[in-house]
């Protein structure tokens, strides 16, 4: 126990630990945006969200593999892969909402949990049958140097790249919600379903689009994670859980909350991994959440609810 405090102090003052944690936090934020939107707008916790992420990683990998000629693929093919993954998984998410979730979401929230849980199982087990459980990774040639020096820390180019893309996604998503007609419909629907219908918003379509856009964003995140780390069919559960931790920490239904919560989780996990071991990173994040819930059950930015 006594060894932990100096180790903790060392991790907290090591710029490379903090910066890498911060960068991964950006990816967690992008991943959690979809989760928080579906939860906040549609009122459904999508337990298959992590499996959408897994599908995104596999879609990107398949496209990159199909269009590159050598074993090391160019950066362009990776971008194409991400875009295809975004489109395919986005459409899939839309269909999942319209064809399955929409049929029971107004009846029972309890059933939507079981339903999305079941969809997740089908996705991950099918993926395992088709592609086997082997962890894979996508290795495009990222332009520029392979490492960047930054405030006394060394940052791999992939991590910097995924952070920037994730940040861009977050900004695009925010602008989409604020500025576009569809985005405004989504916000209207989340504020008052009936009033939104009264002003002529096709509520089912809006819910479907929310699912679809969320799935598209999480699919891109999956592709990025597949490049910077690795991916395999059963990865989904851990990422659904991470999204949940991020959303609860940052507060429900807000893009800014996802950003802050994501970076917070990235830092906690990275510092924790350095003090203890990387194999309990998920447990550390979750334990932080339980402690957090005891202290602030309404999230970082939320207000205490009147009962």
């Amino acid at each position, binding site marked *: 126990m006594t060894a932990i405090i100096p180790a903790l102090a060392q991790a907290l003052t090591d710029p490379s630990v903090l910066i890498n944690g911060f960068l991964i936090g950006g990816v967690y934020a992008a991943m959690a945006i979809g989760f928080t939107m579906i*939860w906040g707008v549609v009122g459904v*916790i999508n*337990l298959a969200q992590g499996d959408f992420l897994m599908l995104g990683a596999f879609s990107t990998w398949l496209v990159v593999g199909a269009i590159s000629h050598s074993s090391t693929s160019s950066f362009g093919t990776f971008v194409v892969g991400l875009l295809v993954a975004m489109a395919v998984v986005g459409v899939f998410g839309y269909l999942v909402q319209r064809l*399955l979730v929409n*049929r*029971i979401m107004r*009846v*029972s*929230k*309890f*059933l939507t*949990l*079981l*339903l999305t*849980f*079941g*969809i*997740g*199982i*089908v996705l991950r*087990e*099918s993926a*395992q*049958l088709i592609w086997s459980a082997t962890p894979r990774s996508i290795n495009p040639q990222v332009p520029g140097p392979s490492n960047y020096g930054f405030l006394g820390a060394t940052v791999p180019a992939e991590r910097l790249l995924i952070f920037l893309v994730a940040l861009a996604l977050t900004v695009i998503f925010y602008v989409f919600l604020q500025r576009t007609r569809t985005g405004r419909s989504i916000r209207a629907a989340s504020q008052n379903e009936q009033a939104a219908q009264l002003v002529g918003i096709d509520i089912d379509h809006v819910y479907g689009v929310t699912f679809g856009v969320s799935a598209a964003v999480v699919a891109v995140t999956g592709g990025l994670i597949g490049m910077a780390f690795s991916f395999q069919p059963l990865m989904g*559960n*851990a990422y*659904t*859980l991470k999204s*949940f*931790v991020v959303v*609860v920490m940052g507060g429900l239904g807000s893009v800014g909350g996802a950003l802050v919560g994501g970076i917070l989780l990235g830092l906690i996990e990275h510092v924790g991994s350095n003090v*203890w*071991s990387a*194999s*309990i990173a*998920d*447990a550390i994040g*979750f*334990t932080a*959440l*339980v402690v957090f*819930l*005891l202290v602030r*059950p309404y999230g970082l930015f939320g207000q205490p609810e009147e*009962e």
Partner: protein
Amino acid sequence: MERDELEGGGIARALSRSSQRTKRAIRESIPEPYRDGYNRVVGGAGTVLGVLVLLAAVLVLLRTAFYVVAPYVGMPVTGSNYTVTTRILQFIVLALAWDLIGGQTGYASFGNIAFFGVGVYTVVVLMKGTLVGTVGFPVAFFAAGVVALVYAAVLGYALLRLSGHYFAVATLGVLVATQQYVANLQQTGGGSGVTLPLPTFGSVDRTFFLLFLALALVTGAVYWYVMRSRFGYGLNAVRDDEAKARAMGINAARYKITVWGISAFLTALAGALFAYQNSYVSPGVAFNVNWTVLMILMALVGGIGRLWGPVVGASFLWALRNRLWSGGPVVAAVGNVLGVSLRGAYLVVFGLLLVGIVLGAPNGILGYLDDKGVFDAVRSRVADTRGGSSS
């Protein structure tokens, strides 16, 4: 109606309304001339399928009963024959314990298998003597239940104050986090697993079969008692409308923590038996995410919120899983057509089943047959026969 209120409770009725609404929507989407035929064919097919599943489950339960008495009537059962039945009994315990929190209280716990693992590893730590002195299995067995109970109470204090949504995902986190901690502790033997002392009593297979049977009966009795007690009605009130339940003076938080504790206690006892029976355990076996899927699906397929639901679901689904696992000509033929080995595909099948049941028959098989009036028909037929014979 009165019976329905006693046995099914509010969620069953709410679910029944929902499934009827879905069915009505489907029916109304069918053009008028075909509607009658649809009702006859699809309605009839569903009932036939339901009855077949029910019969399969009853056969499994009859086999269990047969195994209990067989040695006394001069028909010894070989050890390996007990294996499947013992596992079914274990899942009856898990599914019933899940239904206490998931069905009776309406809080979907996706992490109940964490308590199974806690039970397994309490036995490991106590019997190996890695934390305190070595103790025998009977002490370790009850200690497993108590440890899980305390664990659930502490976690419940943090998690059950939140709405059902938060709780559901948080329980998934409990499972993942507990597994990771156990895999990284020295006292538990780490991620590669640990070997336990072998059972010292004779006829091991039959003894564990009887122990699991006893545990299943105890769990059933606890479930039955909870359902009919003031406590159980309180849980149903929390499930149907938590705000109203609180307004009526029910301490919702305490009710939820208590029932989750009971659920954890029973689940951990099953884990303790499993650990001693298996002799070798690892974090992957003790905290098996697939078993979480199974126990929820079992309760759901049979019918959540009713005593016989999880029992029927566990009997049918574990038998089905074994059929898919071990193969056979039919399974192999279907696998050939699809181009995959169905041996590893049983979870895909079960995932599809989960989706299908939620959308098509959220009350489970028993609820579906009940809605169709099958049980009423049987009951009145029986009553007629009795009336006829007495007159």
